[in-house]
């Protein structure tokens, strides 16, 4: 059997096999290099997969040669190929970046564990994305979540609040996952299958209370995982106190994957024949998306801690994604997928810039950013460019996201949503502008509270960060990969869901 035939399983098998070995390696560079190597291999496999799917259409892979729907099926179409590419791509940038940051922020004895956990976390996220089996989603979700709890808790070396943050996330995350399992159970009870494609077939015409309840449980469970407003309370603390590299990785991938699961269930498992899907769009995702966009953005403006500010911003940005798909049109779904991709690029770059500042000044309070443009100009400009991207300035990915979202809003007749989208972008302008102004124009307070950075961050951090900044600009002017692929993916998903409701 050739390796090419096994391609779909490689992104899962490679890192999960590599992860335990990380623990056996001697401390120092070895675990880091080992983990990097495997993220790059995984990324390469995901690129190959993506090209295959883009060229020939969806791939189905029967795990262990058990034919679906009995066996577990890995099913890759354009939508999850894009997310796979994103997760592995971000990982392959964040892993090399992590070394110096982790040296400072994580206990030295824990570094092999750290990289092992990070690999497992990535595997889990990839697994959630790649699988075509509903229960398998839960398993991978918990694989990634459990390692995430551990990763967040490793931030305790700098701030003990990382522990409580991790604990709270654990409680919320587990409740979310369990809700999801209940939902899956109800669907299974109604259909007798767990394979998503088969579920979609069996569910046709079954608009009864059991299916409705199953759907509701899945929505709420995933809502917790993806920090859908107002179920986001775990997120700000978790992101703030986790080691900076972990935050960069999680912010770019974890919630995105959960949004993907929502999309998958809404469009591939259920379809528009179910009245409750339309109702969920109109009465749950749309208002909650809008509320999240505003409330979280607004809260972000008043944060003294830049990491926490960006965390709230993430909650707001998730609102955009939910809003996009709540339009239930090809344009809206495209906008959602594009924003999943684009937001990952900008938020990862932003959190990486913060990680550089933490490395040199030891703090992520806004006061530590004062006058940074003179001391760390490269980091400063990375932050500002990614920040502009977050606001949605032209020539950055943020603008592309906004354009797709606005176009979807107007095309769907939700013109008021269009104005709310730009209004909340303006709040982003306020909180990013606040930090940018402090960086550019304010003199650092010389009160000894913060270490004044003496030099620029090391190249091992600057290069990955600027790769992402460059991606922010590149995908801001070329949308062959994001826009076109997302459109095709959205069209395929809409076809599965049976067109407009």
């Amino acid at each position: 059997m050739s390796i090419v035939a096994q391609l779909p399983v490689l992104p899962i098998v490679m890192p999960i096999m590599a992860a335990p070995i990380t623990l056996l390696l001697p401390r120092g560079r070895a675990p880091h290099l080992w983990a990097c190597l495997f993220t790059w291999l995984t990324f390469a496999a995901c690129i190959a997969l993506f090209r295959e799917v883009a060229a020939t259409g969806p791939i189905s892979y029967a795990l262990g040669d058990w034919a679906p729907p009995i066996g577990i099926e890995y099913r890759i179409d354009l939508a999850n190929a894009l997310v796979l590419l994103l997760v592995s791509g971000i990982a392959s940038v964040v892993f090399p970046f992590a070394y110096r940051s982790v040296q400072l922020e994580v206990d030295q004895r824990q570094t092999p564990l750290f990289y092992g956990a990070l690999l497992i976390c990535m595997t889990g996220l990839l697994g959630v994305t790649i699988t075509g089996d509903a229960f398998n989603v839960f398993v991978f979700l918990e694989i990634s979540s459990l390692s995430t709890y551990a990763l967040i808790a490793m931030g305790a070396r700098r701030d003990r609040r990382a522990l409580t943050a991790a604990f709270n996330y654990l409680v919320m995350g587990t409740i979310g996952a369990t809700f999801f399992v209940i939902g899956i159970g109800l669907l299974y009870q109604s259909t007798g299958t767990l394979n998503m494609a088969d579920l979609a077939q069996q569910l046709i015409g079954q608009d009864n209370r059991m299916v409705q309840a199953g759907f509701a449980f899945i929505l709420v469970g995933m809502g917790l995982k993806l920090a859908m407003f107002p179920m986001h309370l775990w997120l700000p603390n978790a992101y703030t106190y986790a080691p900076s590299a972990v935050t960069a990785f999680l912010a770019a991938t974890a919630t995105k994957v959960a949004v993907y699961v929502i999309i998958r269930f809404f469009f591939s498992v259920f379809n528009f024949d179910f009245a409750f899907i339309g109702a969920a769009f109109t009465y749950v995702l749309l208002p909650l998306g809008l509320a999240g966009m505003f409330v979280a953005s607004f809260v972000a403006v008043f944060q003294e801690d830049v990491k926490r500010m960006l965390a709230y911003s993430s909650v707001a940005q998730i609102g955009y994604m939910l809003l996009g798909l709540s339009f239930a049109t090809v344009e809206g779904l495209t906008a959602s997928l594009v924003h999943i991709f684009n937001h990952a690029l900008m938020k990862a770059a932003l959190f990486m810039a913060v990680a550089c500042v933490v490395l040199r000044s030891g703090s992520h309070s806004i006061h530590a950013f004062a006058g940074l443009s003179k001391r760390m100009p490269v980091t400063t400009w990375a932050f500002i460019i990614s920040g502009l991207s977050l606001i949605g300035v032209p020539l950055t990915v943020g603008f592309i996201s906004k354009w797709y979202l606005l176009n979807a809003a107007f095309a769907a007749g939700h013109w008021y949503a269009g104005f709310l989208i730009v209004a909340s972008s303006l709040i982003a302008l306020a909180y990013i502008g606040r930090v940018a102004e402090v960086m550019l124009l304010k003199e650092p307070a010389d009160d000894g509270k913060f270490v004044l950075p003496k030099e620029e961050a090391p190249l091992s951090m600057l290069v990955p960060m600027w790769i992402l900044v460059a991606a922010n600009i590149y995908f801001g002017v070329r949308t062959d990969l994001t826009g076109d692929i997302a459109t095709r993916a959205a069209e395929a998903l809409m076809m599965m869901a049976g067109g407009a409701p």
Partner: protein
Amino acid sequence: MDWFDFILARYNYWIFILLMMIGLYVVFARGNLVKKIVGLNIFQTSVFIYYISIGKIFGGTAPIYMGDELDAAAHHGPDSGEGAGHGAEAAAHGATAHAGAEEMQSKIDNAAPGEETLAKETLHSKIDNSALDHGNDLKDALKTAPRPEEADSLHSLPDTGDKIANTLSHVDKTPPKAGLQFTPDGLTDAAGDAAHSAAVAAHGAVEAIVYTNPLPHVLILTAIVVGVATTAVGLALAVRIREAYGTIEEDELEAADDIAEFGHQPGAPAQQAAEGAA
């Protein structure tokens, strides 16, 4: 008393809901981190029970393939080993002695490690005639299994009827599965009826043996592993929190954080605003 029967017939769900609510209540109402973990466990356990109860079929045998080729099947899977043998023994016992379902259940639990492999093994092996013979015995037993009044009350539920029809069509659509029908369908009480109808419908063309659905057990085994892992991580975190803070009471933790950050106990305005808005 229709509604009374309606409620009583679903006692397993009431247990599930009750446990779930207790679990969630403990998670939210208790400030002690360990108690929260306990609540979480109760909550998760309720889901396990739910899954197992939907897989149960009245009169269904252990989901283990029975027949002369049993040994061959067991030998097929190199790693099914002892567990498979054990399971096979239990199955044979169940088939011949028409043992009660509860007893079967306990046997299956014993056979658990090999169960998954075996289930798949049986699926893939050829349908063999002796299994059908045993199946006939079982079928007879099944015909008497559902109590009439229960069946009536169930028939009044349109959903159930649809579902049974659905199951049947599912059987027809997928011939490879027929003859070895796991009756994936859910409702415990409906299951016997469903199996009965399935058996009648399938009469002649293919014969059906009714097994208790193994898949929920498999799923729950996985979920239990996840649950144990979560508990372990949670407790480990609690230990670390105790080391760092000297307490595992939530309000004391919050107070300690507030004092560390603001120098006084009540939350600072910024925090309050954030939480208020959130």
